[in-house]
């Protein structure tokens, strides 16, 4: 992914900055420019989301896409944040068979991927099980 394309999302990838509509109070992550419910009548402001949530569903990826680098299997999940919105994330710091639906998780800051041997190293959120 190109540098500007990644850089413009750094804020939200590093710190779970989403958006909340001041008209309908709905919270969005990833951030949106337009509230889908209120559309032009809506007004979005940044909101720093709590870093905890629970696993809605998950899988173990055995065949990563080109460019992913490490080819070891890894867990991907949809996590519903305690503040409302859901996101797609990697789950780390646990065995491949070590999680289930409903598991409480918390955000950690990790390396996501790198653009080859000499390219940019991309960082962002992953989640790990809460004890």
């Amino acid at each position, binding site marked *: 992914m190109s540098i500007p394309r990644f850089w413009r999302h750094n804020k939200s990838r590093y710190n779970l900055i989403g958006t909340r509509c001041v008209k309908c109070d709905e919270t969005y992550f990833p951030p949106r420019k337009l509230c889908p419910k209120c559309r032009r009548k809506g007004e979005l402001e940044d909101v720093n989301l709590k870093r905890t949530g629970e696993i809605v569903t998950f899988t173990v990826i055995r065949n990563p896409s*080109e460019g992913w680098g490490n080819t070891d299997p890894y867990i991907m999940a949809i996590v519903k944040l305690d503040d409302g919105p859901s996101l797609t994330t990697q789950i780390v710091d646990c065995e491949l068979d070590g999680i289930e639906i409903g598991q409480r998780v918390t955000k950690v800051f990790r390396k996501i991927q790198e653009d080859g041997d000499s390219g940019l190293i991309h960082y962002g959120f992953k989640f790990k099980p809460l004890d």
Partner: protein
Amino acid sequence: MKVAVLGIGITKFGEQWESSFSNIFVEAGSKAIQDANIDGKDIEAIYVGTMSAGRFIDQEHINALIADQAGLNSIPSTRVEAACASGGLALRQSIMAIESGMHDVVVTGGVEKMTDTTMSKTTRTLVTAADQEWEAFLGMTFPGLYAMIARRHMHEFGTTREQLAMVSVKNHRNAKNNPFAQFNMEITVDDVLNSPKVADPLTLLDCSPITDGSACIVLASEEKAKEFTDSPIYVTGSGQASSTLSLHDREQITVIDSTCNASKEAYRRANITASDVQIADVHDAFTIGEILAIEGLGFVKKGEGGKATEDGVTDKGGRIPVNTSGGLKAKGHPVGATGIAQAVEIVSQLRGDAGKRQVNADIGLTHNVGGSGGTSIVHIFEK
């Protein structure tokens, strides 16, 4: 609404090392035009669906390439894209061109050449149907998305791993009787369960293959069709709906709401209900996809798709035969061609030309999905 199908054509699906992208399109198109018994000068426009010629073969400007290679240089040619629903969208656009009165005879095709690149690049290209910044970039793959739906469906409704496998077993059984299908072997539930894991709980035999192929259909207005045939098959309903691009933004992970909404529109336009449909070719890119489809289209109640599959409801001899062609799983899934290939199967069935696959049906349905459900397109065909 009523648009006539004059002709259909399809290539053999599979790895076609000796044929190029435009070769396979021209082959399917020539068959369809011959089947329609029309002449090149009767054709007023071309629509073509292809998901990602730009990534698979580094070629854009597909509309002009197709018109050029088909020897139809002067007529308008339009390429449309909706990921794996590109073919279905091309079909819908050509129906709208006829219904609007703009054109009387249109050739519509779908085509994809997926084996001219590496497997990992193909995997990467297929996930462009998902959100690049908030799904793919973070490590998600396309099978991974459907695997997460499958896991949740099993959790909510008690759908079993074996029931998922039965979709694949049935569709392979059907494909044995389809000379155009990529695969020609029967498999067992154990074969599916023991095949390599792709994205848990899905294994390799839950997933549709990488395929080259093309399918074409010739459409005409009801009035114009009378010049060529006394008994065409008609498209009587068309529906299209959108949903969130990302799976994580869906209200319910286990419902493809675009499928529910597209089918409602198609049923309304055809003035039928789900229970009137007698045969369907649906989007089983992954086994869970067929279960979601038969639920979303209203053939079975929500959550009962796995059980219905186990009970044989969707078998060739069942209450509603689904994917008699072999489906995406066993017939093959050249992504942009799939929506048209589904129409080719249903038209063959309604004409009574389906050979060993033949079922007795007057009303058929096709169901084509883009991405994890961001687009769904449904068409109704009648004798």
